[in-house]
């Protein structure tokens, strides 16, 4: 009862909080879900995103946009499943049960988020492992598909084709 009550309060708070970092118009993510993705990205991409600052915020924004774009192209049923998963991470009670985190996710530290992702990753429940994989793949795919990610991994980008054809 106490947990449920606290969860309701936390839920209301999560819903009413304004977006910390505004994101562009989304195709399928609602603003609250976009904020969950933005909260997860720094943990999922720790060591890959630029250090805190404007470049970091811009990188997170792009990850959210890429996540949204890929999600919009998935089969509607799969898209809905991801939407539901993000919903569960938004609402207090389900979030506490699934992640063990008491604060809204965008107030949680990357360490807390990494801890719950690691828990999902090793879980004996197929659903949690599927959730882990789905979220992580959408985020790392969104980040590494764009040129901003390439310098740090030594990828020069695609070759230019305007030169003469090789022999």
């Amino acid at each position: 009862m106490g947990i449920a009550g606290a969860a309701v309060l936390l839920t209301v708070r999560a819903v009413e909080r304004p977006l910390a970092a505004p994101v562009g118009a989304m195709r399928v993510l609602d603003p609250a879900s976009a904020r969950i993705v933005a909260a997860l990205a720094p943990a999922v991409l720790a060591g890959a995103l630029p250090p805190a600052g404007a470049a970091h915020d811009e990188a997170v924004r792009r990850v959210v946009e890429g996540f949204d774009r890929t999600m919009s192209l998935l089969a509607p049923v799969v898209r809905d499943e991801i939407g539901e998963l993000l919903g569960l991470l938004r609402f207090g009670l389900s979030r506490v049960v699934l992640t063990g985190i008491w604060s809204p996710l965008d107030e949680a530290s990357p360490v807390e988020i990494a801890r719950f992702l690691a828990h999902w990753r090793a879980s004996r429940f197929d659903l949690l492992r599927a959730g882990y994989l789905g979220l992580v793949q959408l985020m790392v795919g969104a980040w590494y598909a764009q040129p901003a990610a390439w310098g740090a991994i030594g990828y020069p980008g695609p070759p230019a084709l305007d030169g003469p054809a090789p022999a």
Partner: protein
Amino acid sequence: MIPDPIREGLARGWKAIDAASLARDRELEADVVVIGSGAGGGVTAEILAEAGLAVAIVEEGPLASSSEFHMREDTAYPRLYQECAGRKTADSAITILQGRCVGGSTTVNWTSSFRTPPRTLAHWHGALGLRTATEAALAPWFERMEERLGIAPWAVPPNENNDVLRRGCAALGLRSGVVPRNVRGCWNLGYCGMGCPINAKQSMLVTTIPAALDRGATLVHGARVERLRLAGDRVVACEAYGAGDAAARHRLRIRARHFVLAAGAIGSPAILLRSGAPDPNLATGRRTFLHPTVASAATMPQPVEGYSGAPQSVYCDHFLDAPLDGPAGFKLESAPVHPALAAVTLPGFGEGHARRMAAFPRMQVLIALIRDGFHPDSPGGRVRLRSDGSPALDYPITPYLWDAARRAWLAMAEIQFAAGASEVLALHEDAAPDLAWQLARRRIEGLALRPLAARVMSAHVMGGCAMGPEPRSSVVDEVGRHHQLENLSVHDGSIFPTSLGANPQLTIYALAARLATVLAADLHGRRGRSPV
């Protein structure tokens, strides 16, 4: 300036309709409707159009061409692949790479072009009773398509990503071979998976489809086929709708004398199921095969640059050389290493994942394609419809296949270390990089084999509309004709009764060429004309 044969053809007056931007509902008529423009549909459309038949090709994806192939994952995957290259089996355990554009998967595949392995044909002929599944009967069709599509063993030295496979095999005394590729004037760029920017890859997009359009065929792209309209034992029309914005969607109805399904091994069974096609023995969508694929990533001491150069030029069939009724065999190949594809395939997240990505230019990736469908413990999967009519693929990874996955990780790690790898990582969430073969061996032997921990992929969806002499256990006969619907054929990888044990494009090309040639003669015969 690189010529764009599609834009040139459109300027010449090809009949092409973008169903995604129709302003009103449309009715069309043709002799034959070909549903799908990949390996099966492309070859079929060319042969039927050359025989003088009025052909309409219906393709779900867009008509994209070399002018917009910029070798970028962030534009190629959303535009050219099913579900942004993120299609998965119903339980999310297997990622499926499939094209969704004019040319189908041939527009985005890695060009490997193998004939059907003799052992596979012998099984189809002997155990499954397919009279025409012999090397001798298929040889002329293989020769014809190899000639048509410039298929030949890759004459250029392999890139380092493939040479590691060659050297590792040589060091261990395993035989490797050179991959035949369907290319003409290839620049060895390495971006086949994002659409060939110079039209060197002889995909359906630049070969058979343009030939069919030059012969007057109509191409309807951006059109999702909802169902075939049936009357008795005949198909009377194909009903599709524009794949664009749902609110502004228009419908398309194409009537024809004959219909050919070539929508791939997920699409074709799904259309039959949505159409309520007769299926007295519940064979439609059953026995779907994937060549379930596991991978091993090595870090080499030297640069590999696996994004550059022909993506697949060396293969090893040593582990396929085993009886079909024993443990599952697997084919070894390299996989190109591009940033997003590598990132979504490497296990882990956060700092560990970032560390592995930081070694990107030295990353070497081997894959093992497991030969499924030959053993009672490998019955394959099943395509079914979800409540919204979209297809879902159930594919349980049986213990028989997991056993092969473990042997494959071991084989790949040993080869990578034999070629000089500094460390090797099985792509499995419970694995970690090891610095020596004996350490990797111990770790792989201890890995828990379970879905959603091992990274399992497939680029080869096959089966689901099996061909066979017996209507009780198959969907089409040996010339691709549906057992119950008299004017319907299936010409794609869905007619395979098992997987192949090799990349499937050339088998689809050859079968489609044979089936389309028979069909053309048959349609002319019915009309009282002699075959061309």
